[in-house]
């Protein structure tokens, strides 16, 4: 049988593109044609070489994806994430005390001393899943946790160590409650403001943030569900922070990004656009927490 006639068939065979029937028929043909059989062997080696080259290419591509290692700090990006996380946690802590102070500045100026130490857990950029939770050994103390795979904050002075770091900070000393005491806390009817007015800490809460910058439909949106928020858009270019405020076990989450604050609402179970908070009183307060922190 002329080899030329079989080139296409041979190629389809080598490339696994024949149907089961055609494949069987071709293999029968192979048995009767040693020349064809030899050519198939050669072609299979070449095809295998192409496959190996593609595997190597894909592996190189994956090897260049920044991920956080488990035992070594291979990615400088991760260290930066840790910084961002600590910043966000600190804001959450300071935020709480400022808010608390607004509410009770006259009666309980030392409210801060009643609060337990804060525990911050950092996670790499991938989101945790239930399955991951099963194989994960880390656990943190029952205080509030803030998780955020944020991008670097280069001005932050906190010293990032390695991935999977657990940092414990006592949280209270840095804050002087008197700073914000001049603020009136009930000037606005903004719903978010109302929540903030009555905020109080709740233990065992956490928000894992994940960025999806590949969705064409959602360019500046979020989806908050339980302890996970997905931010749709180009959030990885600069620092973003998740701020949690607790009010009788009800959590209110804010996003700080590019000098704007955004309220993130969990209701409705759908992806929602992010619109900046415009209430000047609320903004001023949130700004004050950040200024206080930095």
């Amino acid at each position, binding site marked *: 049988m002329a080899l030329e006639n079989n080139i296409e068939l041979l*190629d389809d065979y*080598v*490339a*696994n*593109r024949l149907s089961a029937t055609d494949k069987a028929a071709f293999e029968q043909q192979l048995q009767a044609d040693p020349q064809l059989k*030899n050519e198939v*062997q*050669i072609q299979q*080696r*070449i*095809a*295998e*070489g*192409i*496959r*190996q*080259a*593609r*595997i*190597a*290419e*894909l*592996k190189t*591509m*994956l*090897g260049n*994806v*920044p*991920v*956080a*290692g*488990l*035992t*070594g700090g291979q990615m400088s990006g991760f260290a930066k994430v840790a910084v961002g996380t600590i910043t966000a946690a600190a804001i959450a802590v300071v935020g709480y005390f400022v808010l608390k102070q607004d509410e009770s500045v006259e009666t309980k100026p030392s409210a801060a001393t009643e609060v337990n130490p804060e525990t911050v857990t950092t*996670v*790499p*950029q*991938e*989101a*945790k*899943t239930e*399955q*991951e939770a099963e*194989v*994960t050994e880390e656990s943190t103390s029952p205080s509030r946790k803030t998780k955020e795979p944020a991008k670097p904050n280069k001005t932050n002075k906190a010293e990032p160590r390695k991935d999977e770091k657990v940092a414990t900070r006592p949280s209270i000393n840095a804050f002087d409650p008197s700073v914000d005491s001049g603020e009136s806390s009930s000037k606005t009817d903004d719903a978010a403001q109302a929540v903030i007015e009555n905020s109080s800490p709740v233990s065992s809460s956490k928000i894992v943030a994940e960025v*999806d910058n*590949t*969705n064409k439909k959602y360019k500046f949106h979020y989806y908050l569900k339980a302890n996970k928020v997905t931010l749709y858009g180009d959030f990885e270019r600069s620092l973003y922070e998740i701020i949690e405020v607790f009010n009788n076990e009800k959590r209110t989450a804010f996003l700080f990004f590019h000098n704007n604050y955004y309220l993130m609402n969990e209701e409705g179970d759908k992806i929602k656009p992010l619109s900046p908070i415009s209430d000047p009183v609320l903004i001023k307060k949130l700004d004050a927490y950040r200024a206080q922190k930095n």
Partner: protein
Amino acid sequence: MNEKEIFERICKGDEKALEFLYKKYYRMMTKLVITNSGTEEEARDIYQDALIVFWQKATSGNLVLTSKISTYIYSICQNLWRKELDRKKRLSNEEKDTAVSLDTETAERDKIILKCIEQLGETCKKVLMYYYFDEMSMQEIADKLGFANTDTAKTKKYKCKMKLDELVKAQYSEQDFLD
């Protein structure tokens, strides 16, 4: 990106979606190996291999997902790591010598083929890889590489393959390929 979107994009050969997936499950999958007497390097290697197996099955249209993506990849990792542990165990026994000599011979031959592939242009490499490894359809190849139609993709693939055959055969006699 939800599961369905990720899977659909991977089926279409979207490498960004693969990177996304890689990041997403990195800790979960590498932990499996690390907690089963593997190093982090081995863990990364196994996870990458597993993802590539998943990728190949998805792009070639040979995968119908009946579980979560993570469950599927996790099971590939488990299998690959089990195999690797078996291989290590075998190597520590007596079979070492034959295995090594066979490996060297094949590796040498593969190396020369890889060198020939490297001599091809970037588009040629891509066409052949998409065709033989990703097993994409001609339409998908045309879309990904911006060819006018499937005929152009087909012709390109044919010419590139001929070129590679020439390069490889210039390095070998036919006998070299036959065991």
